[in-house]
């Protein structure tokens, strides 16, 4: 058995840096004015962010808030794209907007490379992972994903109403990523908790958030040790052995990348599958058309990704500057809303409608520029298989109780309770 002293340090030690960031006062409660006091954590936003974004796009395309120590919310496609492309002025050092800014020295690597990395390191870290996430490589997961979706639907037997978010959509990305990383499938429920810890509960006291993040890294470290003891053909072993600049990766880059792969693909794909099923449940015309024309699904799926894009990212402003009409300060957050960009009428015809045969669809659901979602081919495969299997097995379904549908809060938006009548 090989020993690898990169992973023998006390994990607490390496967390010292993370604690040295800047904290801001936690401000919660109802929003006074979305143009000057926005918060993506308030229930009004999670219930219907589109009405808020459309209103802002018309009257104040770049909204501001004093919450989170200062943040901006651009709502036009053009502004969102400019920021995504401008890695000189906007850093990815932290991509989850919270009341804690990690120290500037964390750049250009960030806590979960490559999503948290800036050039030039970003390119090299991303290059290590690209090969594992090409369409072809991901295609190998397709048969197992399809079989798993069927097994979830088999488990609905005898039920007239099922929760498509909790009992279907959620499980699919969890199972696939556990398989790719080589983690035990029975640990799935724990991943759910890690995701909630990182992406929700943003307004919890920072110390509590740090403690929750540590739980994730303790788990990942245990998986690293398990893989050091018995290496196998999966992404964890790959990262442990991967080399950058002629050396094996530093331990925090290994666990940071593992954290990214585990967290980034779960909430997001779960949301995309859930939002698509929600739309079809409440729009019988679209559902019937997809049953009649299954070949339209890939096109329809892109429209669901545009209209219900689950992912919003964050950036940090590098220096004080006057930008597109507003005065940004160094360390201000940017809430980079791909969902808002995707509904900009200046970019899309009938931007507020879901047009399942939309032919031209340059949506930004997977981001734009160098941080294009590394897992986009994986997400598209999971979404396509999840919808194909569902429509094949359950062609007729409706919302059981529209008022019972709940949506996640924060930067990843999708249904978390979705009772569908299937019988």
């Amino acid at each position: 058995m090989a020993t690898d002293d990169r992973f023998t340090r006390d994990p607490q030690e390496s967390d010292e840096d993370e604690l040295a960031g800047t904290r801001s006062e936690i401000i919660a409660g109802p929003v006074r004015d979305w143009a000057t006091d926005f918060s993506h954590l308030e229930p009004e936003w999670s219930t219907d962010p589109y009405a808020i974004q459309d209103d802002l796009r018309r009257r104040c395309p770049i909204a501001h808030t004093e919450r989170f120590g200062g943040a901006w919310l651009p709502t036009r496609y053009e502004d969102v794209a400019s920021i995504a492309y401008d890695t000189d002025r906007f850093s990815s050092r932290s991509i989850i907007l919270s009341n804690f800014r990690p120290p500037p020295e964390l750049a250009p690597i960030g806590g979960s490379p490559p999503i948290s990395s800036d050039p030039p390191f970003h390119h090299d870290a991303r290059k290590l992972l690209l090969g594992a996430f090409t369409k072809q490589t991901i295609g190998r997961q397709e048969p197992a994903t399809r079989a798993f979706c069927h097994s979830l639907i088999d488990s609905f037997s005898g039920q007239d109403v099922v929760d498509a978010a909790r009992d279907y959509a959620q499980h699919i990305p969890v199972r696939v990523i556990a398989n790719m990383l080589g983690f035990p499938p029975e640990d799935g429920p724990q991943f759910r908790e890690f995701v909630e810890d990182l992406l929700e509960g943003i307004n919890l006291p920072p110390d509590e958030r740090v403690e929750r993040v540590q739980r994730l890294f303790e788990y990942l470290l245990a998986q690293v040790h398990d893989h050091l003891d018995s290496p196998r053909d999966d992404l964890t072993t790959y990262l442990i052995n991967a080399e950058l600049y002629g050396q094996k990766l530093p331990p925090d880059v290994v666990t940071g990348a593992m954290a990214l792969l585990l967290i980034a693909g779960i909430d997001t794909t779960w949301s995309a599958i859930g939002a698509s099923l929600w739309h079809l449940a409440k729009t019988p015309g679209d559902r019937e058309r997809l049953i009649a024309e299954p070949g339209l699904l890939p096109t329809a799926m892109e429209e669901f990704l545009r209209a219900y894009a689950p992912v919003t990212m964050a950036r940090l402003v590098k220096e004080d500057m006057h930008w597109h009409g507003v005065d940004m300060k160094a360390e201000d957050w940017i809430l980079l809303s791909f969902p808002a960009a995707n509904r900009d009428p200046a970019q899309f015809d009938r931007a507020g409608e879901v047009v399942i045969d939309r032919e031209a669809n340059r949506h930004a659901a997977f981001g734009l520029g160098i941080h294009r979602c590394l897992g986009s081919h994986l997400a598209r495969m999971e979404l396509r298989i999840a919808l194909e299997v569902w429509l094949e097995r359950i062609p007729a379904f409706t919302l059981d109780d529209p008022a019972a549908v709940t949506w996640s809060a924060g930067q990843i938006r999708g249904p978390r309770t979705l009772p569908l009548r299937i019988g």
Partner: protein
Amino acid sequence: MKVHINPELCQGHGRCYDLAPGLFGDDEEGYGQVLGDGIMAPEAEHDARLAVLNCPEHAIELLEES
């Protein structure tokens, strides 16, 4: 007509090789590649335009052959 991918702009979204697999493929990192010399038959033009209209990075160009 000829298709061209600007490698400076391509980020590997893969819309081109999803929508027009007869014209585009990917490299080992998932970036789009024009298959062959990029010169296409008139019947392939619809697929080529579809790829152009769905590339989020505006990385694909259709060039009139001179």
